[in-house]
């Protein structure tokens, strides 16, 4: 099948099916089956359809249609790496079989020519860009519904729809309480009663469907403006879902918090969008032939990294022109030569420098949006609170998909980011991963532990992207989606059984709910990155290794920034520790709350079957498809934006080096980082066993010993308090002052005006009543009288009627004689205005 024509249709359908489901549920939700249970089936059916379409697109359209990129030959062209090492190529043998030695040699030769050549210069990234519909055109600004499809898009589709399908099934079981009248035990009314309300089963699935539509729209979006629209749509879905139990104060607060914090990030994003549009004049990612003249207009990516420049990042002409606006205003021609000379003018105050700054502003602006959505430091505070939503929501929206959208966007926009921006991303990611991981150690709410774990893992992804590991970061996004949604669903299953989130009330549940406990164990192992070094491992094993390897390669290139790697490695240990702490506290040991333990039971099949499926996926997604070299990593290589596989240098921070990602495959880094990952993971696991497994150490005592640290961590580094003091309080103060001013001054003024108006109105009323009305009434009475008189003329007597004919004619004629007797000739024409 021709992917260029079929994929937009298939994926477009997969995208729109949930919208149809949403629309139907909005219209007929409460009437679908008993208590709206049909809404659940409809939404599940819709997302299942999407999943089938997406998987079909991936396995039967995309993979057969496009060749995988050839195996790489990393060449340490950069002096920073010291001597070149023997390339470690996973399937070198296969490569040799496929290509003759000549070909091989030629590639080597080419690689050694150019600095920008990472060995992939031959491979053209397959991508399909186009537009479905133009919403509007305002001058040069075109707002369109478009698509940009590469293997990343297709994979995201498959991943999102697959996980969403599992979670929809799971949610049918999880939300069954909502099928009848619901008693919310967490809401106490004024009269001391718990809140009774009708179930909202259909509403939950209505939001889920809207969310799926929005998320898929975000993934398939062909331009950054469309991304922004769906970005906000997933935001609003998240808001609805966090606030699903709207009567709970905590839930509505959390929803507001999530929404407002995200707006802070979006503010930056809008600035980025404006810079991009003002300088590049387009929102489109890919090259789309919008005006139909046969030649596609360059999108953002090909403006930044044009084929003419070997896909190297060059500040585009549009940005240069914008930066040189004052020069152009002076009358300097913006010829190509002039632009080139401006571009090279990197002195402080020079045009090229200013243009470079514009690139940084745009990049950091876009990244700001990602910081909000992906809960990165310092905007990470909303995600743990978002756990107020139902657990399926946490699993789908707040771990696997929506929060990963930030990472996805950084990945998508990667070609645009100059090294300085990447450094910002790396630092933010690194801080996030560490802060969140430490908080997770002390949290006792099972969902909060997972939430902080999510934040921390997102930090990992950002770090990976920031140090130049494009495929490592996105790979981790994929694997993380599977095991984190698995973990959340396991926790949901546990909560469903024991009706509490507090881990201190759990324990020993593996005997009561084996399916949940052991699938959860698989999730923990996957997130820890368990595996036999260099042989085989769970999905997390591969992605985490890749991240650490890239970080290590980055460290070697920038010794000053080495701490990024060490923090990441330490984070790996902490990750293993808190994950197994969670598992031991819930599933192992003795039950701490006898009552709850006795009532616990395994969840229904509709809930644990998805768990098993996801557990299997969490194990295998890192592997290649049996018998072929095709795996996520391969597909990601195929999706890698053109020109990023190169060693990049900062223009402002000239010492900054982003090493070619393939250099991380060098044995020097690969082997070492694998050991680092394995050992830190085992260390964390060991600590967890020591504390919570065999209980050699009592956690309470240790906490007591490090009382201050413990308190600091329990209070989540005091972020909420800090924000409360520096943002919330001042805002409340100012707003109360403003309200006072409004109430006293402005309202007073308005009241005075109102009194005045009322007096005038009263006067008007008098005039109206006695004068105008009198006149009108008189007129109406007169009209009516005339009308009745006219009626009287209609006597019905035929003789009179005939008389009237004669009379009428005569009267008319008499009238006309008056007209005629006026001086006839030329003066008549005055009526017509003729000269």
């Amino acid at each position: 099948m021709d992917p260029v024509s079929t994929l937009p249709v298939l994926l477009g359908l997969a995208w729109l099916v949930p919208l149809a489901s949403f629309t139907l549920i909005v219209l007929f939700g409460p009437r679908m089956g008993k208590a709206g249970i049909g809404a659940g089936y409809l939404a599940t059916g819709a997302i299942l359809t999407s999943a089938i379409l997406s998987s079909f697109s991936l396995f039967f359209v995309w993979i057969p249609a496009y060749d995988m990129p050839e195996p790489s030959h990393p060449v340490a062209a950069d002096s920073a790496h010291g001597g070149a090492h023997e390339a470690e190529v996973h399937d070198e043998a296969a490569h040799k079989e496929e290509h003759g030695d000549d070909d091989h040699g030629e590639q080597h030769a080419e690689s050694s020519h150019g600095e920008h050549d990472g060995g992939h210069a031959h491979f053209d990234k397959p991508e399909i860009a186009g537009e479905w519909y133009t919403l509007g055109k305002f001058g040069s600004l075109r707002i369109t519904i478009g698509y940009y499809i590469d293997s990343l898009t297709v994979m995201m589709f498959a991943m999102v729809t697959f996980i969403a399908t599992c979670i929809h099934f799971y949610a049918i079981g999880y939300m069954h309480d909502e099928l009848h009248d619901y008693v919310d035990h967490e809401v106490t009314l004024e009269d001391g009663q718990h809140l009774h309300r009708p179930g909202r089963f259909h509403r939950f699935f209505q939001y889920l469907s809207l969310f799926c539509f929005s998320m898929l729209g975000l993934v398939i979006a062909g331009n950054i403006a469309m991304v922004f629209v769906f970005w906000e749509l997933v935001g609003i879905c998240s808001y609805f879902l966090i606030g699903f139990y709207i009567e709970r104060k905590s839930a509505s607060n959390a929803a507001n918090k999530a929404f407002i914090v995200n707006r802070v990030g979006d503010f930056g994003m809008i600035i980025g969008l404006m810079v991009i549009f003002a300088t590049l004049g387009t929102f489109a990612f890919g090259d789309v032939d919008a005006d139909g003249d046969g030649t596609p207009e360059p999108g953002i990516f090909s403006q930044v990294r044009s084929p003419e420049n070997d896909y190297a990042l060059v500040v585009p002409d549009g940005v240069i022109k914008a930066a040189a606006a004052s020069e152009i205003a002076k009358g300097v021609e913006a010829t190509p030569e002039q632009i080139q000379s401006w571009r090279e003018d990197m002195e402080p105050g020079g045009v090229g420098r200013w243009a470079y700054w514009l690139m940084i502003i745009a990049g950091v602006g876009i990244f700001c949006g990602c910081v909000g959505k992906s809960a990165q430091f310092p905007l990470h505070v909303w995600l743990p609170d978002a756990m107020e939503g139902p657990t399926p929501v946490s699993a789908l929206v707040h771990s696997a998909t929506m929060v990963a959208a930030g990472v996805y966007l950084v990945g998508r926009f990667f070609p645009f980011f100059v090294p300085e921006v990447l450094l910002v991303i790396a630092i933010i990611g690194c801080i996030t991963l560490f802060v969140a991981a430490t908080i997770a150690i002390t949290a006792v709410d099972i969902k909060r532990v997972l939430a902080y774990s999510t934040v921390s893992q997102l930090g990992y992804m950002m770090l990976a992207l920031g140090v130049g590991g494009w495929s490592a970061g996105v790979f981790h996004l994929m694997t993380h989606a599977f095991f984190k949604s698995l973990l959340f669903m396991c926790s949901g299953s546990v909560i469903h059984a024991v009706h509490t989130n507090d881990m201190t009330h759990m324990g020993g549940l593996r005997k009561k709910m084996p399916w949940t406990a052991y699938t959860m164990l698989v999730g923990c192992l996957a997130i820890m990155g368990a595996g036999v070094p260099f042989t085989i491992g769970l999905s997390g094993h591969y992605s985490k290794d890749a991240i650490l390897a890239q970080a290590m390669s980055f460290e070697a290139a920038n010794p000053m920034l080495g701490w990024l790697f060490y923090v990441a490695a330490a984070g790996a240990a902490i990750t293993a520790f808190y994950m197994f702490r969670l598992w031991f506290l819930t599933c192992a040991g003795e039950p701490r709350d006898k009552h709850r333990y006795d009532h616990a039971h395994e969840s229904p099949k509709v809930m644990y079957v998805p768990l098993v499926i996801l557990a299997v996926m969490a194990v295998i997604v890192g592997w290649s498809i049996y018998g072929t070299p095709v795996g996520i990593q391969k597909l990601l290589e195929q999706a890698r934006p053109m020109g990023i596989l190169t060693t990049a240098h900062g223009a402002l921070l000239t010492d900054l080096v982003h090493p070619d990602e393939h250099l991380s495959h060098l044995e020097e880094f690969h082997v070492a980082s694998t050991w680092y990952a394995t050992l830190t993971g085992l260390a964390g696991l060991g600590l967890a066993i020591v504390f919570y497994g065999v209980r050699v150490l009592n956690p309470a005592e240790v906490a007591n010993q490090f009382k201050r640290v413990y308190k600091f961590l329990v209070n989540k580094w005091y972020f909420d308090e800090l924000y409360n003091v520096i943002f919330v309080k001042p805002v409340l103060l100012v707003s109360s002052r403003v309200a006072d001013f409004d109430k006293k001054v402005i309202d007073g003024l308005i009241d005075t005006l109102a009194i005045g108006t009322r007096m005038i109105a009263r006067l008007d009323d008098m005039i109206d009543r006695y004068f105008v009305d009198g006149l009108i009434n008189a007129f109406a009475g007169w009209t009516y009288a005339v009308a009745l008189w006219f009626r009287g003329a209609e006597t019905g007597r035929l003789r009179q009627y005939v008389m009237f004919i004669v009379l009428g004619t005569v009267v008319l004629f008499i009238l006309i004689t008056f007209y005629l007797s006026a001086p006839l000739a030329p003066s008549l024409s005055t009526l017509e205005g003729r000269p």
Partner: protein
Amino acid sequence: MSLYDLMHSLTADSMRSVGGFEGELVLCATIVLILLLRIPRLTSRIDSFYVMLVGSAVALYMAGPWHPVEQPSQLFTGLLINDTFTVYFRTLLLFFAVLFAIFTRISGVPDRDAAPDVYALVLGATLGMCIMASANNALMIFLGVEMASVPSYALAGLLKGRRQSSEAAIKYAVYGAGTAGIMLYGISLLCGVLGSAHIPTMGVRLAELLQPANLEAGVGLDTHMVLALGGLMVMVGLAFKLSAVPFHFWCPDVFEGASAEVNAFLSVASKAAALALLARVAIGFGYIAPPIETQAEEQVALFNVADEPAQQPETKEQEAKPPAEEEEVLLVEEPSGSAAAFSPLADRAEQIAALAPARDYLAWVLAFMAMITCTFGNLAAYGQTNIKRLLAYSTIAQAGYMMMPVPAAMVLAGSNPAAAQGAIQAMVFYAGAYLFMNLGAFAIVAFLRNVLLSEEIEDYAGLIRRAPITVICFSLILVSLIGIPPLAGFVGKFQIFSALVQAKLWIVLLVAGLNTAISLYYYLRVVKTMTIDPEPETRRPVSMSFIPGTYVVLVSVPLLILGIWPESLNALARMATGQLF
């Protein structure tokens, strides 16, 4: 010209003319068929409704606007004219005939025995109306009016058993006869003075008579009064057909006496034809239409049997004229050719300019009549308790509105023919919208009569709870008759008002505006009665069945559609008026 040549050219002309007369011929055939079918016992079983429906549909197909008329052509030696204006009104009338047939079938009046008679009469009247719309000769005016009127008299007496009905028919007939007589007198006066019955020729003669040189010299002043009287008398005949004040007296009585079905026919078809004729006469005497290029010269020459008498007034003038002026007038002699060639004023623009007094006169008479018609109709509708009577006055008032663009066009024609065309276009549009409004209104009255057995407004009280769709449609129609957006009535009225503004007929505009305000009261009173008033307890259960309801909806929905997207009908109206100026 030998007799043979004459016969030959006559035959050729007739054969050629048939092409533009197919619709009417189909109507004739249908009438004959309906009448013939009654005679043998076997065929008398055939329901004449189907014959009527098929006949009018075929006629509509033959005459519809999908056969484009590139050039106006004179038919039958100039008796009729076939141009886009004719096509529009013929389409309107035949379309109405189709709708009307369906309407009578649903409402059940006439019953099967009376149906062949009624349908034959209706088709005959429609034929007359088509002739009215295409009249190009003073005699055809009279013939058309009578052909349309005489069957109408009989139709008014359709309800044989009812005394009121018979009385209405008698009144209608006598009144009609009176006005017809006056009109015929007027026609004879005009033809006598102008020496022709062919309207374009009469227009040219009139221009010649009224040319500034003659007026200044005082030539022919004695004929002016005769002309004015003749024109007025023709107007009387038209005013009767339009039910314009003061020749409207028949209207309320006839409408009350006749059945609602007949009312629908009289108020829509008869009025549309009368309007078309009014526009034709006004333009014929107040304006010189563009010359028809492709016409065979022959036939004009042929019909100019009136050529000889045409010389008479001229010779008279020549006698009366001081010798000094003679040369000027002697420029006349151009032997044959198109109508324009008769005039000493060879230039069409000069002719048009010369007709200014005639236009002023027509504008004056028509504006005056329109204003009082409108005002009277609206005021007299106030106290009515019978819905048919109320609608009768409503049609009088609507006729007033529809007449208004004609004086506007007369005022504008001399200086700005495009604007004049716009004015007539407004009238044409309104006539199209009016078809749906009044057909819908009377259809609802008829259907409600079948259910309620009453035509009193008070019996409609609270009907919305029983027949919501019907009431909503009726309200829609009434609101459209007032002229409130977004309905077709508003668009039509707006166009009429804007024509008045362009013509600077401020007084007429003021009167029309005031009348719209006045009309709110009695139209909305009906709506109020149907929706707000409580239901009378004694009323028997009311339920509208499906088919009448559907018909009502189908007839009233176009009002909304045309109100929101008026362009379709507007384009037709523009097409219709394109060849007039």
